[in-house]
């Protein structure tokens, strides 16, 4: 059994690295083979949205020029993942989002992480500044088809402070052990805060424009809120849970009926658009000086 620790933080021996390593130490003690990678050591160029990976079944133009393909294939060699990233301004470090955007490639080359367990560790400094801390880590793991079995926010301030914080380290160790147990037993039940959404366990619920319906913005399941004994209760029909956004069949149908037919749309629209966009080409030079500054 192989467990991979992913660190989405630039900081050497910072809290994220220490916590992920602590989780891996515990996993190793449970008999797992472990390894670690720091995603921020690799360039991940922005997806250019031309969808050639899907429409033309070609490799991404960045393949071999940045680290995305390498990092994705590295994950594929593991049975479980511990993903750590620090929460800065409401969300975790941007490398996670950069990685997500390039996962369009999965539409033509399916994920090899489907059904594998993962857990998330997010160290943060200030209470009240973590509203979307789990958002990107949850999306990336769900999009890969993984089962998130736990998520832990760890309150910590000073650089490397977790090294001397038994409580923080214990939380991380528990995560490591849980992932090993999940791989070994096949029991991928969720161990963290149950949250509001029964699928992703987040608490970020959107109130839709009809002011009646609520939706988990991550999973896209829809339901209603009620107040029972003074407490807010969110209820989602069972059918919704089965068909959440990241269910494999939902993703298949999204790709089949919402993305792929747009190839025909582009082809039909292109002759007219090619001419119409000409007037924007000469209006202001958006790229001037960019190379020199970079």
């Amino acid at each position, binding site marked *: 059994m192989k467990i991979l620790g992913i660190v989405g933080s630039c900081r050497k021996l910072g809290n994220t690295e220490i916590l992920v390593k602590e989780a891996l130490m515990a996993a190793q003690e449970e008999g797992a083979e472990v390894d670690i990678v720091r995603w921020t050591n690799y360039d991940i160029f922005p997806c250019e949205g031309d969808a050639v990976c899907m429409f033309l079944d070609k490799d991404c133009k960045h393949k071999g020029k940045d680290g995305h393909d390498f990092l994705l294939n590295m994950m594929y060699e593991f049975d479980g993942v511990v993903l750590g990233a620090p929460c800065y301004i409401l969300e975790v470090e941007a490398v996670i989002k950069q990685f997500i955007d390039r996962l369009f490639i999965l539409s033509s080359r399916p994920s090899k992480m489907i059904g594998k367990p993962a857990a998330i560790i997010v160290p943060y400094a200030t209470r009240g500044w973590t509203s979307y801390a789990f958002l990107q880590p949850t999306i990336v793991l769900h999009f890969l088809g993984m089962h998130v079995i736990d998520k832990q926010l760890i309150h910590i301030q000073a650089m490397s402070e977790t090294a001397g914080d038994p409580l923080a380290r214990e939380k991380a160790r528990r995560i490591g052990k849980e992932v090993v147990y999940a791989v070994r037993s096949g029991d991928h039940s969720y161990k963290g805060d149950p949250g509001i959404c029964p699928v992703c366990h987040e608490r970020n619920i959107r109130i839709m424009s009809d002011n009646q319906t609520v939706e988990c913005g991550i999973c*896209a399941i829809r339901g209603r809120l009620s107040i029972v004994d003074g407490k807010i209760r969110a209820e989602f029909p069972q059918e919704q849970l089965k*068909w959440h956004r990241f269910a494999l*069949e*939902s993703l298949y*149908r999204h790709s089949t009926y919402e993305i792929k*037919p*747009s190839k*025909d*749309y582009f082809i039909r629209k292109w002759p007219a658009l090619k001419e119409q966009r000409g007037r924007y080409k000469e209006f202001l030079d958006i790229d001037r000086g960019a190379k020199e500054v970079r």
Partner: protein
Amino acid sequence: MEELTAVLRYFPLDPVTNPPNPIRRADLDRIARETGTTITLAAVVSKSRTVEGDIIREDTMNSAIEEVSQDVITVSAQDETAFTKAVRALFRLYRAPRTVFGTWGSSPGGREIVYRLCDEYDGWY
């Protein structure tokens, strides 16, 4: 006066994103009658589509938009008010189509009204 036409394409998405109500001829007839518009329904089933329980498989990569499996509701009217009422009633029942190409085939004037009505409910609800 230009005849306004809205072509609303509902693709076989998952039950969560599909119209919350099944598209029924009787509902379309009622809306047409109440608004004084013409509403037709056509079902397209691609030759490549297979269905096994919840599992749908279809090769849509090189298909024309019109050949992909879908239910197509077409609304036509000369009168803008009637047309608007009909499209709004359809969106309340079935939600708006999700994609830009989900209105492919609409007349320019019809498409403009459809887009405005989509935005009334956040584009999707």
